[in-house]
Structures are given as C-alpha cells and as structure tokens.
C-alpha cells in the first residue's frame, strides 16, 4: 500500500470522524450530555489529530490539538456543557472540516486564530489557564512534586517521544545531584580504563508485563558493554527460591563513547522494576523481595554516585509521579468504562459511521466494521440476485413436474430471502451520515440569509444502500437550501403571519413497503402557485391557456430553466435548479413529489429504492414479447377512451391527459416487434416521464405484473442495443428486455415534437 493510498484512508476516516463529531455535538445541542456522547466527539477529533500528526499536516494537527484539549476538559467535566460552549464547539467543528479540506486539497489552512483563542479562553475559564493542557488537568490530586515535571513534559508538546521522556526522567533524577548527567563522561575520562560502570538489579516486577530482563542485558552487550560482575550472592536456597523474584545483579563496564542516555533508553520501559545505579564507586542495588501484594513499592532509583548520603532527597522526586496517579486512576477508568457501556447499551444516540443494524447500539458496533472492496460486494449481490432467480425457477419447474417438496422448498425460499436481505444490508448504511451534514448547512445558511432554522430529524437510523446515500447528498443539500431560501419566510414576515420567528425544517426517513421515503418539509409560506404559473407561462414552459391542477403547477418548479427567486442568491439559484434535483433522484431509481399548503409550508417527498441492484418494474406484453418498464419512469397507466386519442398528421397520435397532449409511442413499432397492438384502443397506455423528452405514452398489449428485477447488462453478454437498458430473467427462466425509456422515447419522437410535453 502506497503512502498516498494510506493518506486516502486517512481522509476517508476524517469524513467519518467529522460526521461522528457532528452528530455527537448535535446530540449535545439537543441536550444529551452523557459521557458516551462527549467521548464520541472527543475520539473523533482525537483520531483526526493522530492522523494529522502522522501525515505531517501541521496546521491541522495544531488546530486539532487545541480543539481536543478543550474537548478533553469537557470530557473530564472541568468545563460545563452550556449552549454557548456547544455553539463554540460546533463552529470549531466547521473550521475543522475546512482544515481537513485544506489538507486534502493542499490549499491554505483556514484562518483559525480567533477560534483558537476563543477555545483557549473557554478552557481558561474553567480549567485554570490555557497552558494547563488536558493531561495535567485531570490528575486527581497532583502533589507539588510532579507538577513542575508534568509541565516540563507539556512544554515538549506533541513531539514528546522516548527521548523527551528520558529527558524528563533524567530531569527528575538530576534534581538531587545535578552533576549526574554530565558526570559519567568526566568520570570515565578520569577512570583508568575509560570505561564507566552501570549496576543493575532487576526486581520482581521486571518479569511482569511481558518484559524480559535478559533482553536488556543483550542490549547492553550490543552497546559494547562487558559484564564485569554477576552477583549471585543473594540467590536463596532452593526451598526458598521464588521464580518471580529478582535475585541476580550485574555490573556492566560500558565503553566511554556510549552515552548514559543510550543506556537509560534501554531501561526506559522497565522503569522502577529494575534498579539502576551508575558510577564507579557504587554497589549493585540491593535485592528487594516483594511480597505477594501487587502494588510495587516506590523505591528510589539509586543513580546518585553516593545514594546513601541523601536518600530522602533522591527518593522524593522519582517515585512521586509514579505513585500519585497509580492508585486512583484505574478505579476511575473502570467506572467510566462501565458507565460508557451502560449508556451505549440502551441509547443509540450518537450514530457513528456504523453500518450495524438499526436497533441495538450503532455506536457500539461501529468499531467492528471491516472495509471491503465495493466490487466484491457488488459481485456478491449480483450472485444473490441469480440465486433468487434460480430458486424461483426451481419452484416453477418442480411445480410443473408435480413434485411435492413443500417443506424443503419453503425452507429454501426462506433461506434465499434471508441471504438476499443480509447481502443487501451489507451495502446498507444509516441515513444519519447524510442527515448529520444538515446542521452545518443550516448554520451556513443562517449566517448568509439571517434566517434561523430549527432542525427536527426523524428516522436517522433508517438504512439504505451506500450508493444511494452517497448520491443523495447533493439533491438533499439543494432541497434544504431551497427550503430555507425560498420556503421559510424572514423573521418579520413570520411574526406577521403569526408564526414563531424561527422556522422549522423537518427531515424524516422511513421504510415504506420496500422503499425508502425521505421527506424534507418546512413550515414556510408554501409554494405561491400564481407566481409559479405566471413565471412558467412567461418562460414558455406551459401554454397560457393550460388548465393545470395545483399539483401540476407545483411540479412546474422541476421544469428545466425554471427559477422563481426574485434575486438569484448564491445559495439556491445558479441556473442549476430543481430539475437537476429531480434528475438526480430519478437516476437513483426514485421519485420526488411535492406537498405544499399555502401559508403552512412545503414538503418534498423522495421515494427511493432500497438498493440499486434490484429495481421495480412493470412487466408488459407486446405481441409475443415480454418487456420490463422500470417503475421509476411510470406516471400512470390507462385504457384510453375514444375521445382521448387525437391524430396528428397521418401516422402520429396524441393522448389527451386532462387537457395536455402527449405523444403516443407504440412499443411494437419502436422495438420492431412482429406482432402487437398498434391501435391505442386495443391496448394499454403507460404514461412515462423522461429526462429529455418530457412525458410520453407507451402503447403495450397488456400489463401482466409488477415485480422486482435484477438488471443484467446486455452489453457485456451481447452488445448494447438502443432503447434497451438491459435484460432480466423472469421467474420462469425466460429473458425479458428492460426498456430504456429515456432512450426509446427520445429516439421515437422527432425532435420538434418533444416540446409538446
């Protein structure tokens, strides 16, 4: 894996983290302040910081450090969660998102100085000074001794590493005898053989924690050290021998060119569990037999050339930082971990990146996700589709052969359906990942329009296909901007209309009979139908004498080139409008409808398929052919009366649908089928919506069924055919072609007629 690829993973992670932080803060905003929620936000920011450091994004890292520090104070309960703070955190998150963007695009980092100082003063207000970083703050009862040391380590900041740690330790040890650090070299030069001595005795704890004292001896030897003395005098008789204790001690003679630092580095991890003394006239530290009690006794590490002289002074600085946090900390941790679990178990509040089931605890399952190549997943879903078809074929065949295997068949059917459902659910994600971006949009809108909008969200755990989710963001954003820009009135107008000054936007998502229904509704003024109709007539979208129902007028806003905004704002007007939204939704196999009440508000309702792999279709007969018309295109179907059919020229006919004329296309002719209905009165007309040619009525012999189908590409198996989107296998094993409605209608109609719709 190349560094670039790893970087891509990092940015994908950033997106997830930002979404998790956003939803966590949204929960905070709504009044949820439990540790689980706060922790999720902290972890999200923390994770971005970690990656930023690893990939060298210093601006991002610096910013996240401040952000994280403030969050840490919040998490530790040092800063109270008030609405003002949540606002600050939300703004900080927006800037963080910009920071991530800048890091990804290689652009300039956003201006964050003001926010940083704001965050720092938020810490200062409660945590006791911006300089007091989170690590020092949460210490339960810092004793006077460790404080300066902790601050010294803070000074080193993020770059604190093994060396820095060593420096800290050395600083602590130096206190009683400042000359110790420089001493060895000087002493060594004075010594006859230019070597200096290290005395060590691993204690009982040296074998714990997976440590192996032998490895330290090996490392000493690798540095060029020679074992001068091995003290075995303390080894007890066999019957008193305890394998877990440390009885042996060594003295190593180190070459003069080996620094004391290098030696101390070896003993960095082992800490107090190996007594260490440096100097020519020092003894190997004494054996300490530790009783069964688990807590290691704080012991001075004798590095002073003359430890016996000032044992108290040597003792105090070294063990204190070790000892102080040790006792209370684990207890606190157990408690908070238990609390976390309890909260997670019964509260699905902060939906993270999880693709887990909607019930239960999404936050808890999120960590268990694995990343799979989408291609593999699609292959699986494809195969499952085949399995479903094969199963249906088998049932049909056995039925025909009068084989009675009802139980086995129904078992197979249940299993097949379960497999299909779980395969689909792998691709499914909660819609929260889209919804969680909405607060940011609203905040931006509030800043630019001055309209403050309250957000209500329902059904954010509703799951739908990943691809659908990814492609839903853009139309949804557009609809939301539209709702705030055009739908919700200004505060003055709202008050005049007897409404609360703050508008409300409601987002909801739910499963309804195998489809997902998403609704975006505002409590604004509703669509002004007079204005819409006038505008549509002005723009030549409808004829001046057209008789349109309220619903049809509403739908005019989806017409290409339609825009009612008096002033084209930079928010929702830029030529690309609602027609693009509708097209996006249609590309997903979905539909969009409007429900608007003047004075009360407007709701846009998106009906989307659960997945793109399986579509709904109308199975129709044309002569001896069976065809599938994707349901996403179908508006209505009807058996026309005599009066509704009008001739146009010698060969073309139009259908009058409530005063509008739309062209009739015979599928028999369009596809060149040998037989089939040519007269609209003999068949059924299916009114379809198309992308480029408006509406048209497809003439078929009959409608047989409506069912789900798996699209098989014709191009990969045969070649691409105009007017045919693909093929599918019917339950009886026959292949049926899927009509490409857009292509077929565009192809069958002369270009000048397309405007008729």
């Amino acid at each position, binding site marked *: 894996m190349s560094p670039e690829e*790893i970087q891509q993973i990092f940015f994908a992670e950033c997106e997830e983290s930002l979404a998790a932080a956003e939803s966590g803060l949204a929960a905070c905003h709504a009044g949820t302040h439990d540790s689980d929620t706060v922790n999720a936000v902290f972890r999200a920011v923390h994770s971005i910081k*970690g990656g930023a450091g690893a990939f060298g994004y210093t601006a991002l890292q610096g910013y996240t450090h401040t952000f994280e520090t403030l969050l840490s104070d919040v998490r530790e309960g040092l800063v109270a969660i008030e609405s003002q703070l949540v606002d600050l955190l939300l703004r900080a998150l927006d800037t963080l998102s910009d920071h991530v963007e800048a890091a990804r695009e290689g652009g300039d980092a956003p201006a964050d100085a003001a926010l940083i100082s704001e965050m720092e003063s938020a810490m200062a207000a409660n945590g006791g000074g911006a300089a007091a970083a989170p*690590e020092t703050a949460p210490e339960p009862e810092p004793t006077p001794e460790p404080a300066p040391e902790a601050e010294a380590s803070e000074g080193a900041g993020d770059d604190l590493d093994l060396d820095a740690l060593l420096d800290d330790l050395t600083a602590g040890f130096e206190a009683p005898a400042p000359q110790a650090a420089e001493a060895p070299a000087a002493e060594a030069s004075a010594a006859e053989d230019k070597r200096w001595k290290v005395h060590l005795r691993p204690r009982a704890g040296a074998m714990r924690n997976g440590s192996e004292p032998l490895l330290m001896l090996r490392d000493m030897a690798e540095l060029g050290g020679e074992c001068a003395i091995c003290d075995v005098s303390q080894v007890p008789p066999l019957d008193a021998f305890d394998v877990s204790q440390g009885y042996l001690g060594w003295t190593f003679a180190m070459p003069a060119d080996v620094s004391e630092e290098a030696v101390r580095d070896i003993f960095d*991890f082992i800490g107090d569990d190996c007594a260490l003394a440096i100097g020519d006239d020092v003894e190997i530290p004494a054996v300490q037999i530790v009783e069964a009690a688990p807590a290691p006794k704080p012991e001075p590490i004798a590095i002073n050339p003359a430890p016996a002289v000032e044992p108290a002074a040597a003792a105090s600085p070294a063990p204190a930082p070790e000892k102080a946090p*040790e006792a209370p900390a684990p207890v606190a941790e157990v408690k908070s971990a238990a609390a976390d679990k309890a909260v997670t178990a019964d509260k699905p509040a902060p939906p993270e990146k999880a693709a887990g089931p909607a019930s239960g605890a999404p936050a808890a399952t999120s960590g268990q996700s694995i990343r799979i190549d989408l291609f593999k997943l699609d292959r699986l879903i494809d195969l499952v589709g085949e399995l479903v078809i094969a199963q249906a074929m088998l049932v049909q065949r056995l039925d025909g052969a009068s084989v009675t295997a009802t139980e086995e068949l129904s078992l197979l059917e249940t299993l097949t359906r379960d497999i299909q459902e779980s395969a689909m659910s792998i691709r499914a994600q909660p819609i929260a990942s889209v919804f969680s971006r909405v607060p940011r949009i609203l905040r931006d809108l509030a800043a630019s329009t001055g309209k403050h909008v309250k957000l209500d969200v329902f059904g954010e755990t509703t799951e739908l296909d990943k691809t659908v989710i990814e492609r839903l963001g853009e139309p949804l954003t557009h609809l939301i901007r539209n709702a705030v820009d055009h739908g919700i009135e200004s505060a003055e107008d709202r008050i005049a209309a007897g409404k609360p000054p703050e508008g409300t936007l409601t987002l909801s998502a739910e499963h309804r009979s195998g489809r997902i229904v998403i609704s975006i509704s505002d409590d604004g003024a509703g669509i002004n139908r007079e204005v819409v109709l006038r505008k549509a007539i002005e723009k030549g979208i409808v004829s001046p004498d057209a008789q349109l129902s309220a619903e049809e007028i509403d739908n005019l806003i989806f017409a290409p080139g339609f825009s009612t905004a008096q002033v084209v704002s930079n928010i929702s007007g830029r030529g690309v409008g609602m027609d693009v939204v509708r097209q996006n939704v249609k590309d997903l196999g979905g539909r969009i409808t409007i429900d608007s009440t003047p004075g009360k508000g407007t709701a846009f309702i998106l009906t989307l398929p659960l997945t793109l792999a399986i579509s709904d279709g109308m199975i129709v007969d044309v002569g001896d052919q069976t065809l599938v018309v994707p349901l996403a295109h179908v508006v209505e179907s009807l058996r026309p009366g005599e009066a509704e059919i009008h001739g146009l020229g010698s060969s073309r006919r139009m259908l009058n649908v409530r005063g509008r004329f739309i062209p009739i296309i015979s599928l028999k002719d369009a596809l060149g089928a040998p037989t089939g209905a040519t007269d609209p009165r003999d068949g059924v007309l299916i009114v379809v919506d198309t992308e480029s040619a408006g509406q048209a009525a497809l003439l078929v012999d009959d409608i047989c069924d409506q069912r789900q189908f798996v699209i098989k590409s014709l191009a990969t198996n045969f070649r691409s055919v105009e007017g045919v989107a693909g093929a599918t296998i019917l339950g009886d094993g026959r292949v049926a072609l899927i009509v490409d409605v857009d292509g077929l209608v565009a192809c069958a109609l002369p270009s000048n007629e397309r405007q008729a719709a």
Partner: protein
Amino acid sequence: MSKTTRILTVDDSASMRALLNHALSTNGFDVAQADDGVSALEWLAVNEVDVVITDINMPRLDGFGLIEQVRGGTRHRDRPILVLTTESSDEKKARARAAGATGWIVKPFDTDKLVAAVRRVAH
C-alpha cells in the same frame, strides 16, 4: 531469532493501522491488524503473537482494557505489549505500566524508533 516476529497492531483508525503495517512490514515483521480491543481479543484467541502494539483510545474496549484482559488471561499473559498513543502524559504512562504495558510509543511515531522499541521488547 530465525522466526519472523509477528506483531498484532490494534487501532481503530484504519490509516494508523496502514501506517503501522507499512512501517513494520517493510522492516521484516509479520503484521496482523485489529480495529479495537474486542477484535484484538478475538484474534488473540486463535492466533499466536510475539508483540502487541495497541492504541489507547478506542471504542468498545480501549487499550487499557485490552492489556488487562491479556494479562489476566493465560495464553498471552507474558507477551510484550506496547502502547501507541498521542497522549504522552506521565499519568497515562504510569497507568499503562500499572495496567501491564511493557512499553510505549508516542504518535506520530518515527519508524526507526518504532522498530527499535519493538526489537527491544521482542523475546
């Protein structure tokens, strides 16, 4: 030691796992990955390991919890465990040691130091 040293890396961040994997495998280590303490324990239940490197702050089961479970078990009780963390406070280190960590590496890590730390504790 002729056998390849096998390392389990535990981090909830996929990019951090990828970085560790890159740094360690290019230095001749055999690397396995887990995305939190729970999945690490699941992996350890059926695999052998020479060194565990774990993040501290993770969902479900954090690094301390993982160490406690490993030390409290039987199979991997004596395995060296390095803690990988951005939190460099002495308090965290003392806690890590008290919880049973063998050593630590501070993120962002330097590949040489990472490898040196692993070599230092690998049995």
